């Protein structure tokens, strides 16, 4: 045997037949004929000649049988085989061995079944369709025929083409399943019943005829209709109806959303329906319907992603959502392709694959359960997210993550991490660089491009509330807004070009979705920390810049000193200097004159030691002149603010400051006036002692003056201590503790508001203010009245003295002529006549003044502000007014501490 025997194939075949059957040559004639036929008809193999594939298959088989050692052994042997070059067609041999291999675990059921079956007589089934034992009674018959042998041992029906396959060779189409119908005609052939192997397949029964007969689907034999009683393991083994394998194939198409042969999408009902013409048993129908749900879900998700990917304005968040959906669908497609390949493998090697692993609808149901749940989640998400974009979309996805099912939660978390990745990117760019590139308006910080730099802090950036994702709290969102705003503020308004990385150590931004996922899983901790850190650093830096470069706090104090009359000596000196100027009518005043006087005052007092920056901003402003105004009415100090300071001291704030200044200036002026009055009184009292007729008038003057002094005194105390000092203290504390610019602005606004309301400058206290103004007017009138009184009195005094002097000069006591004396007496008489006039004038003045004060007190009593009520106590400490004013009596006594009720 130098080489393998060169006998002809026929001879070999014959010897093979003899060998296997163990019979002599004559007896195996039939088999031999058959063998020749088979081999002759199938000359070319239908599968690829791939040795590697075959060896892999063998290994897989062995592993499936849990014979790992054997698999290793086989690998060894195969390797050895490969090294030898004796065999030329290794592939053939291996394939042959593989196809002949049997699982040792499996009982060779064939023999047993055959044994049982062949206890019955064979001939009965000669002409019936043998293969698919759907009918229990026909079971025996079916086994009488060779083909069904394999399927008998099969657990499920599966691809029952196995039997057919053995007859028809490897024409592995499902249609071949139905080729068994061919035997109808075939079985009737005149085969000797003795041949158990009823190779009833006539020569004519080639695959083509099998197909032809299939196409017609001839009605089944008489016994068929009763075959509805299917044995559970024989599902779908309906030769006449759609077989399960065909359904499986269809279902696999439906899974992808493509209409199958039997199962099509019904538009109006929006579901997959099995074609009505198809004859299908109920359980199959149900199972297919259940499975086609997956196709429906897939379509829904696919439609969404397709539509959205065309939408240009969908934004980054939406696109990442679509990308994540796509990913999930890809996984799904992968699974489908695995199923497809499984199907293909079975088709190719129907005989070889253990039918336990073949595809059936039931198996599909089980295997597709998890994907179904996933697809359901995705479809639900898609529904929920219709029409949303940006932060809204992220919120929607996040809300779906709040579920107890861990798989669903994991899936949604994954999608959420992808979806929120762009948002977190926006966020990091915003808080670390202050840049906002948001073409599709998805981020929750909105920038208004029309706003100029001077209003940058207040108006330019705002929160888009709808776009705040639900996993970011409002507080965090506000902080984020603030951080970005600060950076932009620094860049544009403060002209501070420090790169942001110096401000905050820029931690790694969310560059990858993985980072985003990590961040999302720890929203409370890491994310909050990041935001807080950025917030603190940025705000501190901003405040530093403001205080260092722009002297914010100094300016605040300067406002207090100058506009709120905090620098007493300066104000007094200024008033001293301005007094002669301001008495003149307003139209004659020139700004540069007043500015010069301001400079003088500054230089002469402690104000000169102030920061030059501050003094530069101090200025005089002349208000609008109405006719009849004196200088007092139009004079005002001013403080120029620009640049970043103007963010805190906005135009409204400056307006408020000026109003308060006006009020305080007037009050100060009253104080000043009364001081003058008192001075005058003190000086002249002694002088005018010699004129006893004046004493009554003077007494009245003194009383009125002291009343006024007391009043103004109390008012000043109230203003200075209760209003200004307290509010200022609060403001200062808050400013020192402020963590960011917003806090400072807010504290400042509160300060101004309280000052204004307490100084009776807001709308509620209009009446009080009017009263106060009236009082001030009265004081001024009194001053003028007193001045004229003193003038005339002093004139009189001077004249009298002159007269006396003349008298003295001439001749001692007798130096005055009679007519001179008479003249003198006449003059004195005249003078004394004017006194009652003065007296009455004063009385009127007093009366008027007191009535105004009483009204003022009544209003104070009924005010809502507690400090004002206390002011009224102080003003009327000895109940001087209460005695005169019945209303006061009633109100003071009974309503003390109670809410006023319509007095």
């Amino acid at each position, binding site marked *: 045997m130098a080489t393998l025997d060169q006998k002809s194939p026929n001879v070999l075949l014959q010897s093979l037949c003899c060998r296997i059957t163990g*019979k002599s040559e004559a007896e195996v004639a039939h088999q031999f004929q058959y063998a020749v036929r*088979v081999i002759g008809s*199938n000359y070319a193999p239908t599968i690829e000649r791939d040795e590697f594939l075959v060896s892999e298959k063998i290994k897989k088989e062995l592993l499936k049988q849990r014979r790992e050692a054997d698999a290793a052994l086989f690998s060894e042997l195969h390797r050895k085989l490969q090294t*030898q070059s004796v065999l030329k067609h290794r592939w053939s*041999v291996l394939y042959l061995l593989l*196809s002949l291999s049997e699982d040792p675990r499996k009982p060779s059921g064939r023999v047993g079944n055959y044994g049982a079956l062949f206890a019955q007589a064979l001939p009965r089934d000669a002409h019936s369709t043998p293969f698919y034992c759907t009918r229990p009674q026909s079971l025996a018959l079916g086994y009488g025929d060779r083909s069904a042998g394999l399927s008998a041992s099969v657990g499920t029906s599966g691809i029952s083409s196995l039997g057919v396959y053995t007859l028809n060779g490897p024409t592995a189409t499902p249609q071949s399943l139905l080729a068994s119908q061919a035997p109808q005609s075939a079985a009737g052939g005149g085969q000797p019943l003795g041949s158990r192997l009823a190779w009833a397949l006539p020569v004519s029964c080639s695959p083509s005829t099998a197909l032809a007969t299939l196409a017609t689907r001839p009605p089944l034999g008489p016994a068929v209709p009763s075959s509805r009683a299917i044995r559970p393991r024989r599902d779908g083994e309906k030769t006449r109806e759609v077989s399960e394998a065909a359904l499986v194939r269809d279902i696999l198409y439906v899974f992808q959303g493509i209409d199958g042969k039997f199962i099509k999408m019904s538009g109006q009902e929006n579901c997959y329906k099995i074609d009505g013409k198809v004859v299908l048993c109920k359980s199959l129908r149900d199972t297919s319907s259940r499975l086609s749900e997956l196709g429906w879900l897939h379509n829904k998700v696919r439609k969404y992603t397709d539509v959205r990917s065309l939408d240009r304005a969908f934004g980054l968040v939406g696109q990442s959502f679509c990308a994540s959906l796509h990913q999930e669908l890809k996984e799904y497609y992968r699974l489908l392709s695995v199923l497809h390949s499984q199907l293909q493998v079975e088709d190719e090697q129907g005989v070889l694959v253990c039918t336990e692993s073949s595809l059936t609808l039931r198996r599909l149901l089980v295997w597709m359960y998890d994907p179904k749940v996933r697809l359901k989640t995705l479809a639900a998400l898609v529904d929920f997210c219709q029409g949303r974009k940006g932060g809204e979309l992220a919120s929607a996805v996040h809300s779906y993550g709040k579920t107890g099912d861990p798989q669903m939660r994991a899936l949604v978390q994954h999608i959420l991490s992808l979806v929120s990745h762009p948002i977190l990117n926006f966020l990091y760019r915003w808080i670390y660089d202050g840049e906002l590139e948001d073409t599709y308006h998805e981020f929750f910080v909105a920038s208004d491009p029309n706003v100029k730099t001077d209003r940058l802090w207040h108006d330019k950036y705002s929160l888009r509330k709808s776009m705040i994702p639900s996993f970011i709290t409002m507080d965090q969102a506000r902080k984020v807004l603030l951080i970005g705003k600060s950076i932009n503020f620094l860049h544009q308004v403060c002209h501070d070009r420090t790169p942001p990385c110096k401000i905050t150590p820029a931690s790694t931004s969310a560059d990858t979705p993985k980072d985003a996922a990590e961040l999302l899983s720890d929203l409370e901790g890491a994310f909050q920390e990041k935001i807080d850190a950025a917030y603190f650093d940025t705000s501190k830096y901003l405040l530093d810049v403001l205080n260092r470069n722009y002297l914010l706090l100094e300016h605040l104090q300067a406002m207090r000193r100058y506009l709120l009359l905090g620098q007493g000596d300066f104000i007094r000196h200024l008033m001293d200097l301005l007094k002669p100027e301001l008495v003149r009518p307003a139209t004659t005043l020139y700004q540069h004159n007043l500015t010069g006087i301001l400079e003088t005052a500054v230089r002469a007092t402690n104000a000169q030691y102030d920061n030059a920056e501050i003094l530069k901003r101090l200025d005089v402003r002349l208000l609008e002149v109405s006719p009849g105004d004196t200088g007092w009415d139009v004079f005002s100090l001013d403080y120029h603010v620009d640049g970043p300071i103007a963010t805190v001291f906005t135009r409204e704030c400056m307006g408020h400051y000026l109003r308060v200044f006006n009020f305080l200036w007037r009050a100060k002026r009253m104080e000043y006036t009364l001081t003058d009055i008192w001075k005058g009184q003190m000086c002249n009292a002694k002088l005018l002692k010699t004129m006893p007729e004046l004493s009554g008038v003077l007494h009245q003057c003194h009383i009125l003056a002291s009343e006024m002094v007391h009043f103004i005194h109390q008012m000043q105390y109230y203003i200075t201590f209760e209003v200004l000092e307290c509010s200022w203290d609060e403001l200062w504390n808050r400013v020192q503790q402020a963590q960011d610019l917003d806090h400072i602005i807010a504290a400042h606004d509160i300060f101004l508001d309280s000052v204004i309301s307490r100084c009776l400058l807001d709308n509620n206290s209009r009446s009080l203010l009017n009263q106060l103004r009236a009082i001030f007017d009265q004081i001024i009138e009194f001053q003028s009245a007193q001045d004229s009184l003193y003038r005339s009195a002093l004139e009189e005094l001077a004249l009298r003295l002159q007269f006396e002097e003349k008298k003295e000069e001439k001749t001692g006591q007798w130096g005055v002529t009679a007519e001179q004396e008479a003249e003198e007496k006449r003059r004195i008489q005249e003078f004394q006549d004017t006194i009652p006039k003065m007296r009455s004038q004063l009385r009127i003045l007093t009366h008027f003044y007191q009535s105004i004060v009483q009204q003022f007190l009544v209003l104070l009593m009924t005010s809502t502000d507690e400090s004002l009520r206390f002011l009224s106590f102080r003003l009327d400490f000895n109940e001087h007014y209460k005695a005169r004013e019945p209303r006061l009596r009633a109100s003071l006594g009974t309503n003390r501490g109670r809410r006023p009720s319509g007095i």
Partner: protein
Amino acid sequence: MASAANANLNAVRETMDVLLEISRLLNTGLDMESLSICVRLCEQGINPEALSAVIKELRKASETLKAPENCTN
């Protein structure tokens, strides 16, 4: 020549041994002779699918032939 022939023979024998081993592993039920016939057939270009089908049929036939014999016996 002889050595070459011998070598060849040995190679052939080895190959057959290996194949037999594989066949045993796979539990094909082929004995040495059948296996050698099959190998020869394959080497001559016969379609292994068809061949395996034939063998299976033959086996089934032999079993069915045997069974009634047993029963009747």
